[in-house]
């Protein structure tokens, strides 16, 4: 009986509920350990004139202070473009950008030392908005473009047109465990770096570079993270780098733990976007052409912005066939911490744009937005090629729409919402269905590779090591199940080990939803290598004990903890017996597996290709109710339906779907990043930055999956599930926009994202004040920015 497909608890669940799981700040401290912190730039853009830490060094317990001058290597790095520094030299480009690293023996001394460091920084004019960067024409990286057809011409000729700007806010990751690292120095300048990171190999590479070491001198170890969500991919390099500098220089273990406040203030977030669009459509709301110019706020350095923008451009179609499309994107350089990976990775901002456009088209044509969506939906046999030329295989979107419209009773509830809004004097309701079609694979083809190490011990137990990092998403549990299933043994015999660059080299980040796809496949490949050798041993054994069957490894079956020749199923070896036998026959019981995704590619110079192995799709119907006087909004009901192929672990997948949806709901509703006019984050702790609370979850939350056995390109027919459900949170935002249509009595309403209570109330007030602005369906495009 296969363990794959079973609802097994997370492999760390018992440790989590008893408080016994160990995170970096829980690791026991060595006697001579140093605590590390830093002093960063007080201004968003500055010229550093002097740095004086002499008073800090006088404080009892303070051991060392370092600046960029103390870095033995090259103070320049970056995951795509090398434009970041570990420690500022003479220029600072965001508030909190590290300048001085401090090492002390106690927390008290550290706190005092931070106050004693004197910086003289001349404040320069910062760019603190996308508009400011556009005005300066200050962009990171080049302009990217994907185009099909002749959008320009179709827009000119079309009967209906709308144009406007979608303003989309960023998002704080709010992983519970803040950035953390513990670095233990060894002999010959070798370092063991315990880092709370999604990308141990990147930490290894960056640290070697800035510290002037060879990569083989740096071992990066990640047991687990207390949440990551993309925020511990490239952003984990600074804390690890600062602690490593201290460990290397002092030859003492060095630990850095960001406070939540500092983490929120000084590390990068989801990219805010400002997207200008022009759309042409017919009487049915079918989109004829779309022109869009996407501006992403990249912050002060390139980080992963190129790839994030790429995903926004490739996801602006979402579930809709757009015959004539011309999508251009640029990354604005501003003086905020470099914006970075965050679950969805640009996809949500692309999808938010088209979903907003669809709502506008429906409001303009006075149609139910569902009908506009259906008019544009990708087909199964035609109208099923994306704007960048990828053919949708086994497109399940039409099926998902049909089923969720039925199961959520959408049509009937639309009538009830109409009635409610015509009667209620105090409240307003909105209803929306939004889909998601999320491309799976890193858009940078090179990254779609992984390796795994599988070791079998003489008692039959197994250790598996891969480059995947565990941040709660359950990748270790998935891999454990895949490995147990390959040998058909009890999963209790398998442990997925701490991730370490010592065991798996040159790994890709645990990102792009693909950790199980890539690392699970690599682990399966390693298992299959061992199985082939073991099958030979077994075949020889059965040939010896049975009469006249010969030794044929192909006829050997691994099932339920036993091994037999399919022609003599009564004669079985126990798993442990075969392990011992293989060892005696000098057959390797440890192998490395390698996996590289086949059949993907993309050419950015042409904006064409098939970058994704497959798509994970879903739909969400959300209903909201709004207080007309305060703008306060409550989500009343949510219906989610997804196609995630065949689940390796349905319980873990459900957790990813519901958790992702709620995180997306937070992004589009109450999670608002507010900055001072100097560029300092004001909403830097949970007191002021409000992620969804248990009371915000709708009492009626239905989450279901369709059967789809067709995704044979991926391991065990599964589909990646980490990021796609986050985009379903947009249904809540669309429902708010839907409610505003009722309030606006025919106007196409504006709504920025997030739709906070304040945003909603101000929009309601505005709608009340303005008269019908959109009357003519003539040649002048209606401005709705």
């Amino acid at each position, binding site marked *: 009986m296969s363990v794959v497909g079973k609802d097994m608890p997370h492999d760390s669940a018992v440790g989590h509920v008893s*408080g016994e799981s160990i995170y970096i700040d829980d690791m026991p401290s060595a006697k001579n350990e140093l605590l590390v912190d830093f002093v960063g730039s007080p201004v968003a853009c500055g010229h550093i004139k002097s740095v004086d830490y002499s008073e800090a060094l006088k404080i009892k317990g303070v051991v060392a202070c370092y600046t960029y001058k103390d870095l033995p290597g090259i103070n320049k790095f970056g995951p795509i473009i090398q434009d970041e520094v570990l420690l500022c030299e003479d220029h600072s480009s965001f508030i909190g950008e590290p300048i001085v690293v401090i090492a002390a023996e106690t927390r008290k001394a550290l706190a005092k030392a931070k106050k004693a460091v004197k910086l003289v920084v001349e404040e320069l004019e910062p760019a603190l908005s996308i508009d400011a960067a556009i005005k300066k024409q200050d962009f990171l990286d080049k302009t990217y473009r994907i185009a099909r057809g002749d959008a320009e011409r179709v827009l000119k000729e079309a009967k209906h047109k709308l144009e406007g700007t979608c303003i989309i806010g960023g998002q704080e990751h709010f992983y*519970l465990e803040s950035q953390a690292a513990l670095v233990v120095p060894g002999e010959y300048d070798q370092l063991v770096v315990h880092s709370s990171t999604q990308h141990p190999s990147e930490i290894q590479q960056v640290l070697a570079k800035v510290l002037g070491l060879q990569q083989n001198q740096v071992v990066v170890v990640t047991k687990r*993270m207390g949440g990551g969500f993309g925020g511990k991919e490239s952003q984990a390099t600074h804390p690890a780098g600062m602690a490593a500098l201290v460990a290397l220089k002092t030859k003492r273990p060095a630990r850095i733990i960001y406070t939540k406040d500092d983490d929120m203030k000084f590390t990068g977030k989801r990219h805010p976007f400002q997207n200008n669009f022009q759309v042409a459509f017919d009487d049915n709301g079918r989109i004829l052409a779309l022109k869009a110019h996407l501006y992403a706020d990249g912050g002060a350095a390139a980080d992963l912005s190129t790839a994030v923008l790429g995903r926004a451009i490739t996801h602006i179609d979402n579930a809709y066939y757009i015959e004539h499309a011309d999508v251009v994107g640029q990354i604005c350089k501003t003086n905020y911490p470099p914006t970075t990976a965050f679950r969805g990775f640009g996809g949500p901002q692309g999808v938010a744009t088209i979903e907003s456009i669809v709502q506008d088209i429906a409001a303009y044509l006075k149609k139910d937005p569902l009908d506009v969506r259906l008019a544009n939906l990708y087909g199964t046999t035609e109208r099923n090629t994306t704007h960048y030329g990828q053919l949708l295989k086994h497109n399940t979107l039409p099926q998902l729409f049909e089923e969720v419209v039925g199961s959520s009773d959408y049509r009937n509830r639309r009538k009830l919402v109409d009635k409610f809004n015509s009667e209620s004097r105090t409240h307003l309701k909105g209803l929306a269905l939004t889909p998601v079609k999320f491309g799976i694979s890193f858009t940078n083809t090179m990254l779609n590779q992984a390796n795994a190490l599988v070791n079998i011990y003489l008692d039959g137990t197994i250790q598996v090591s891969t480059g995947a990092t565990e941040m709660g998403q359950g990748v270790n549990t998935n891999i454990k199940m895949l490995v147990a299933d390959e040998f058909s043994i009890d999963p209790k015999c398998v442990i997925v080990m701490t991730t370490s660059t010592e065991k798996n080299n040159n790994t890709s980040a645990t990102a792009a939803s693909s950790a199980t796809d890539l690392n699970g496949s690599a682990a399966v490949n390693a298992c299959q290598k061992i199985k082939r050798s073991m099958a030979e041993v077994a075949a020889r054994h059965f040939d010896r004990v049975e009469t006249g069957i010969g030794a044929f490894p192909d006829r050997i079956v691994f099932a339920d903890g036993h091994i037999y020749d399919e022609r003599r199923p009564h004669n079985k070896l126990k798993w442990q017996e075969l392990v011992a036998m293989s060892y005696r026959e000098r057959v390797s019981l440890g192998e490395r597996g390698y996996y590289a995704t086949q059949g993907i590619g993309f050419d950015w110079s042409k904006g064409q290709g098939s970058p994704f192995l497959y798509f994970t799709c879903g739909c969400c119907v959300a209903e909201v109710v709004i207080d007309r006087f305060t703008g306060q909004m409550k989500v009343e009901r949510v219906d989610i339906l997804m196609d995630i192929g065949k689940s390796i672990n349905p319980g873990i997948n459900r957790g990813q779907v519901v958790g992702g949806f709620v995180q997306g709901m937070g992004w589009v509703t109450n999670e608002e990043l*507010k900055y001072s006019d100097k560029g300092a984050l004001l909403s830097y702790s949970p007191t002021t930055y409000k992620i969804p609370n248990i009371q915000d979850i709708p009492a009626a939350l239905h989450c279901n999956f369709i059967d789809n056995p067709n995704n044979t390109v991926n391991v065990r027919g599964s589909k990646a599930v980490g990021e796609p459900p986050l985009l379903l949170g947009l249904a809540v935002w669309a429902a708010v926009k839907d409610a505003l249509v009722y309030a606006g009595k025919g106007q196409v309403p504006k709504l920025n994202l997030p739709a906070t209570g*304040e945003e909603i109330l101000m929009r309601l007030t505005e709608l009340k004040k303005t008269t019908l602005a959109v009357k003519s369906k003539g040649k002048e495009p209606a401005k709705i920015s």
Partner: protein
Amino acid sequence: MRDFVLLYVNGVEHQVSGDDAFLSLSDYLRYSLNKCGTKVVCAEGDCGACTVFLGRLNAPKSGIEYIPVNACIQYMYQLDCTHIVTVEGLKVDGDLNRIQQSMVDCHGAQCGYCTPGFIVAMCSLFEQCDKGEKSCNVTRQEVSDALTGNLCRCTGYEAIIKAAMSVDEKEYKRLDNLYPSQTLISAFKKHHDEPVSVKGEESEFFKPTDVKSAVEYKSNHPGVVIVSGGTDVCVNLNKGRIEPKNIMVLTHVSGLDELKTSGNTVEVGARVSLRKLEEFFQETLPEFHHILWVFGSPQIRYAGTLAGNIANGSPIADSLPFLFVSGAEVEVAGLKGDRRIKVNQLYSGYRKMVLTDDEIIVKIHIPLPAKSTKLKLYKVSKREHLDISSFTAAISLERDGDKISNAQVAYGGVAAVVLKLSKTEEFLNGKPFSLDTFRGAGEVAMKEIMPISDVRGSKDYRLQLAANIMEKFYFETADEKELVCP
């Protein structure tokens, strides 16, 4: 005078003195005792990851009452004669308890960082609940209410709710069974009434046991920081906003724990927790109960007090608008004796009270509104629960036939202090109870306030709310038949 804090952690006695007595409980657990199950995330009582049980003598001193608190905003000097139970202390005979097991089975933990806090908060729900014979499972609303103070970024809460609802109350083994209360009770009874003072390297604290010595200490130590529930003070300590030399802890001052109705007035002792108040007002005054229900989290309400909310004096303190319109008074004790001050005359500026250096709040007197009074309390915040308000309001009035009389209006979040809107009140009095009147009152109110733009909302937003809330009041209090469509 005793010179150490006596407490138990998971059944083991500790005597804490010197600098350790000035640590937060979470730091003490993690760095002094190496009990790292309790996690710290925000260090301000807003995420619940550090939730632990605090056990103390119950009112009749016959048992131990366990409440959930945020260990990051409980300092060691507040914890004399308490029993702290952490996540590590919840296993039953070395096995997961029923709730821990349910969280495993239901996928209630993903990254695990919030999980210890959720486990303790969830156990506290079962610790309090007594379903009797009929229903053995908790309801969804009870679960949500118990876990309001715990943030999870991974699960979306669904699995956590399911985990709690799957447990039969009778399968939960209570703390009294894990930690026999007799030892604790006798130790606490013995040491409960002893004053304590501990000197650290840079500061000292004093725990008096009567009002007189509290008043004397306060007058002799200008700048002393008074800690009771600590839900505001300890946040400021954690963030380095205050570095007090002297601290006075009111946890064991006798005579401050009483909560009773006297005639038409509710008397609330300064040590009465917001949680007790919430229970008390559930029947007595549902409107105020609602404000208390959305006030912070269970962890905050169990620790925090109404007196603390008043003394902290924030212009967005949730309790203040009601106390302003109801004519509540604080009773303060000082060297010269006791006196009473109307809450709406208590503040002289931003977070400044008119108390003299020796005075402390000992009681709050709240007159209950008459049955005929139309009273509405409003809290507008970004998130409904566990959020600091952007705007608050209390509107109370009588209807004399068609005419409005005795209008009382107080707004919070619209100036440096909570404002009593006398011009708006004047405008309302004598006017007919109609939509036009309230729209007019909204316009008057807008002119009477001076909101600023800050992280919780813009000036324009607050002005709009000031106007709209009048209209909302109309629709919520008017008889169905007199309603006009907006």
